[in-house]
């Protein structure tokens, strides 16, 4: 494993001997088998692999929305595999930013409302929240669209709102699951460029699952998964 020189070498994510399997009916299907590795702060990592390889599962575990069968995941010094549901939710709100393939914006809230959502879980006042939202939206270049509803925005614009939402709480890691999967080439390139900027200029740690080789090129590091284990590494 080699790491780019410009990145901080302290691991922000430590994955140790993580295994996960799913039960379907009477069968148990192993998805991840005894995986261990580190992610440094400021890293931009792409996880790739065929369908069923476990890449999305790994992402979900890192994000704290699924639980391991065995092993531990330490993020920012905190072992999230030991947290209760309630604590995990609270941890997620502050530490993880999500970017989904289908944007997953709340259709009945405006762009502003969507970006504000994670802040409602904090103790910030209305004025403070407004400031953060404005900042996030201007960062993605959508300040003039803050009163639009998702169905009034293009795919690329919706994804940008989603990114604004993902960064508005200044989270420890950004987790992206096929962020360009539903976009045309031009919008995809915009989104990837934006993510690249977030990584370079703001030092955000990004973990991205993707099939798209072009998207993977934007990352520093690519890890391949197959049948639940890492098979290849190159940067």
């Amino acid at each position, binding site marked *: 494993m080699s790491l780019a020189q410009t990145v901080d070498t302290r691991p922000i994510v430590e994955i140790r001997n993580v295994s996960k399997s799913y039960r379907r009916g009477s069968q148990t299907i192993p998805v991840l088998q005894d995986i261990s590795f580190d992610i440094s702060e400021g890293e931009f990592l792409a996880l790739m692999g065929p369908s069923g390889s476990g890449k999305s599962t790994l992402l979900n575990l890192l994000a704290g929305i*699924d639980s391991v069968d065995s092993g531990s995941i330490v993020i920012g010094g905190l072992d999230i595999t030991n947290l209760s549901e309630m604590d995990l939710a609270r941890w997620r709100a502050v530490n993880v930013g999500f970017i*989904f393939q*289908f944007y997953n914006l709340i259709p*009945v809230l405006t762009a502003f*409302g969507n970006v504000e959502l*994670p802040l409602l*879980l904090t103790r910030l006042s209305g004025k403070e929240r407004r400031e953060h939202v404005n900042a996030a939206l201007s960062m993605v270049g959508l300040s003039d669209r803050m009163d639009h509803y998702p169905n009034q925005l293009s795919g690329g614009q919706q994804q940008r709102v989603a990114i604004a939402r993902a960064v508005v709480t200044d989270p420890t890691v950004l987790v992206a699951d096929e962020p360009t999967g539903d976009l045309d080439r031009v919008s995809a390139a915009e989104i990837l460029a934006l993510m690249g900027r977030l990584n370079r200029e703001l030092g955000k740690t990004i973990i991205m699952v993707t099939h798209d080789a072009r998207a993977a090129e934007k990352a520093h590091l690519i890890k391949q998964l197959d049948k639940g284990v890492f098979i290849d590494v190159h940067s």
Partner: protein
Amino acid sequence: MIPFSYNLRNLWTRRLTTALTIGGMALVVFVFAAVLMLAEGLKKTLVATGSLDNAVFIRKGSDSEIQSGIDRLQASTIETQPEVATGENGMPMVAKELVVVIVMPKRGTDKGSNVVIRGTSAGSLLLRPQIRIVEGRLPHPGSSEIMAGTNIAKRFTGGGIGETLRFGMRDWNVVGIFDAGNTGFSSEIWGDVDQLMPAFRRQAYSSVIFRMRDQSGFNVLKARIESDPRLTVEVMRETRYYEKQSEMMAKFLRILGISLTIIFSLGAVIGAMITMYAAVANRVSEIGTLRALGFRRRSILTAFLLESLLLGFFGGAFGLFFSSFLQLFTISTMNFQTFSELAFSFTLSLTIAAQGMGFALFMGFAGGLLPAIRASRLPIVDALRAA
């Protein structure tokens, strides 16, 4: 917490379904309120008809004035009881009355209905201060003149001022219309008892009523009357007498109304449940997103429950709003117990409104609880996959 506007806007987005569900609940609340209002109106009319100060005597064993008969001798004995109050003119406030029922056709149809005719004397009016003449004048005693209550004048042919009724082989002229407020007297016709008794070939009065000097003297009076061997009468406060008259009718309305409401409310709750389950199913990925962002299960549960309660609230509000218009209507029907005409209206009270709204919210809660629980229990990963 998930913002309130989220809930409102979600209801608005699926407008048709929301409207239908609210409509269903509104109708149930409407029926519920209507039944309560009817029973309330009935009670008010009949109870208001009586006064706590008046004691009513009817023959022992008979259930109402119509079945009762008190001969002249007993009537005199009753008149001379010490509890009788004295009026301003120095006369005792007593009335000996005859109550019979005749059939009169309702205006606009030839269908007859039973109407009460009350043979009265001078004391009768004194005992019922709520009665006022609104048109014409009092009938002259000793004549074939009669006066009709506003309800009779309005609804029955022959009951209006200047009109004539024929019974007992005589013609009787309506010379006055009286208003007795929202009481049973408004559905009666009054005339001179000494003229009506021979016309109907009755030798006995139906009832004797007097104003008590002191309300609290009732028990002593009752004890004396019931132990007097010369008398075969029973006595009760006028309020109690009229209350008993409505018991059967009230019970009927209550049973019918409540059972209907229960059945309909089951339907409304099911409608709400289906609506909310569909809402949950439609927003599975949204729920996943919210949970991923860090909203707790409890917030999800509360949000969906709140939407369901909102449905109930709007349903209740509309239902109560429309039911308040029922107060413009008066029901004119036959009291099963006394076989005679009774008019009463719907009365909306604050209690009924509160009960109606409470019921609506309960329906919303009942309908939304299970779907909300399901929504909150969705595993995050599965919910997100459902995009």
